[in-house]
């Protein structure tokens, strides 16, 4: 039938377009420097199970955490129902899985989750727009990020509502014994809506049922293709991003191998030929997104702009310009722009812009205390500090543009072995005249 062909066509297009956009994101992430994160597989799976699948960090803020679990579990469960919709759409069958024993109970469970999703999304909308929870209204939450959040919530409510109206109309048609509408037994929640729809003729109800069905499935296709343009991409990237979490101490910062070789040569530990000779050293630190690691860039695409990081940042809490969420959002926005340029013009692309200055100012970069409150708070284990540090490395080692007090500190360490101007010979003057009572 023509409808089934149209459906199949839309399905193929939706998947193809989604695939295209996801591969663009994958390509953008691969613009980052390579780092090897293939160690400790079992611990990585464990972390992913706990933090991503198990939402262990989400529930640390219980209200948002539990509501988020409603939406997250609801989203996954209700998607089982997509399987039936896909088969019905392609083959022209109706509720093809209704032969399954207790099918109506299964659908009823879906309905419970669908209601949970609707309720949670309504509360989220209320928190964002009426209560105006502070973290959704920081300066980096300009009109687009705020609209993005609302679009996602409203879409989810509409999709779930379509599911309910489809089920209600279907139930009445089943009771009326209309051809094609096999009796499945009643559905727990939509059965309460029957009185609202009962007055309609079977033809109207068939229209409502079909409309709900098409709205639901087309809505899902549209939403699927909206996600790569949205902060909502975390629904896919949260899992790999948590898998690739830094497993060392939270305050561990990697040692730069390129520097290690140079220092070893300078100290006479190895000579230049042992160090590998003429290897391209590259840029120290990061001036732009391409200088960051692919993991830093994956972090940027994983962020869903919840702002828990910024809400605990000591710099931000005391009115400084630094917001860890903005660092991540800027990295993603710059990467989108940079990736687009590279795909259009190839390697020679240069728009005279950089992540430092054009997106992130020195003022923000130097305000970080590296306290790691942000990284601990992030429900998807984004490492904000790592990006800030790469930017500092560039400013310090490539531009020599660190604040002057920082430069003196560093010079003191080089000359005196301490960040202050004291003589190395006095290093244990503290031990003079030290008495103990025995």
């Amino acid at each position, binding site marked *: 039938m023509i409808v089934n062909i149209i459906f199949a066509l839309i399905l193929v297009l939706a998947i193809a377009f989604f695939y295209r956009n996801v591969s663009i994101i994958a390509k953008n992430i691969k613009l980052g420097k390579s780092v090897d994160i293939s160690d400790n597989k079992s611990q990585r799976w464990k972390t992913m199970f706990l933090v991503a699948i198990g939402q262990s960090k989400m529930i640390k803020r219980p209200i948002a955490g539990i509501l988020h679990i409603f939406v997250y579990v609801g989203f996954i469960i209700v998607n089982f129902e997509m399987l039936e919709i896909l088969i019905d759409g392609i083959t022209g069958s109706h509720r093809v899985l209704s032969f399954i024993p207790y099918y109506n109970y299964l659908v009823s469970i879906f309905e419970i989750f669908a209601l949970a999703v609707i309720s949670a999304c309504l509360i989220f909308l209320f928190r964002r727009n009426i209560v105006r929870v502070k973290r959704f209204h920081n300066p980096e939450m300009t009109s687009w990020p705020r609209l993005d959040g609302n679009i996602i919530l409203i879409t989810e409510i509409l999709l779930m509502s379509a599911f309910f109206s489809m089920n209600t109309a279907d139930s009445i048609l089943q009771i009326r014994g209309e051809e094609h509408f096999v009796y499945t037994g009643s559905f727990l929640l939509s059965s309460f809506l029957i009185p609202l729809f009962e007055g309609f003729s079977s033809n109207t109800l068939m229209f409502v049922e079909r409309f709900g069905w098409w709205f639901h499935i087309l809505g899902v296709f549209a939403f699927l293709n909206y996600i790569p343009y949205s902060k909502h991409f975390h629904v896919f990237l949260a899992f790999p991003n948590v898998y690739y979490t830094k497993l060392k101490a939270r305050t561990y910062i990697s040692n730069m191998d390129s520097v290690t070789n140079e220092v070893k040569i300078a100290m006479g530990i190895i000579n230049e030929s042992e160090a590998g000779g003429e290897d391209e050293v590259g840029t120290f630190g990061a001036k732009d997104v391409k200088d960051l690691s692919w993991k830093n860039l994956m972090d940027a695409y994983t962020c869903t702009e919840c702002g828990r990081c910024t809400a605990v940042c000591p710099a931000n809490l005391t009115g400084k310009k630094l917001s860890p969420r903005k660092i991540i959002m800027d990295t993603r926005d710059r990467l989108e722009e940079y990736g687009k340029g590279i795909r259009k013009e190839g390697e020679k692309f240069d728009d005279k812009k950089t992540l430092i200055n054009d997106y992130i100012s020195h003022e923000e970069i130097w305000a970080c205390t590296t306290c790691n*409150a942000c990284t601990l708070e992030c429900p998807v284990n984004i490492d904000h500090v790592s990006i800030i540090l790469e930017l500092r490395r560039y400013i310090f080692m490539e531009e020599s543009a660190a604040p002057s007090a920082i430069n003196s500190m560093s010079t003191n360490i080089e000359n005196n072995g301490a960040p202050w101007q004291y003589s190395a010979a006095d290093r244990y003057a503290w031990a003079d005249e030290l008495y103990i009572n025995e």
Partner: protein
Amino acid sequence: MSNKRLIKVPVVSELASENKQAEYLFWVGSAGSYDDRAKKITRAFVKILEHCKVSYAILGTDETDSGDVAKRAGNEFVFQMQAMQNIEIMNSFEIKKIITCDPHDYNVIKNEYSDLGGNYEVYHHTEFIDKLIKEGRLKLNTETFKGKKITYHDPCYLGRGNQVYEEPRFVLKQISNDFVEMERNRERALCCGAGGAQMFKEAEAGNQEVYELRTQDALATKADYIATACPFCMTMMMDGIKMKDKQDDVKVLDIAELIAMSENL
């Protein structure tokens, strides 16, 4: 009864020249060596080591800055120069175990020196005091701070960074029966504002100093003593107390100082 004894702090190289080796290296760090306030922490901790007859020694002039602040400021060259000098010295003396009072040096030696060839068993002094108590080598007097309220500020590099939350609390609860938590504690503790090389520069423009906000947290507990376990947190909390003009009501002391005081060392 009380007998004052002059402590001669053992130095690793001097012991080595007599073919002797101490069990632990006490890594003093730059702050503990030069900062006037932090030197008092160093001295208090040495008294505890002496009191418990721990086999320890310091590097003396063989020690140089750990490079931590340079690294956090983005100067990886200076960091690695410092790190490699220190590793070379420590490895040449076959150092195995290290204790330090500075959570930043603790973090850098424990986690970052290992990539550069320095592998040691590293203790923060709060972990070490906890160990001394649990091994029965340090018996504490509960009289000194009786009826005094003590709160504890978690240093970021000790707590969030290295998961040392319980040892400092265990130690404080040995000397105080009125230990009180700040609203933000353990992994949610607010930074004092000194980390990431902030200690060495002016703060960026804002509406408050970070240390002021953290001091408010501490003062809200109505504690008589604010305990810290980091020389930089010490500076910040002292500044906060002065800013609030509370230096007569509240004392900021390192856990090592509180322990030395409780034992009248």
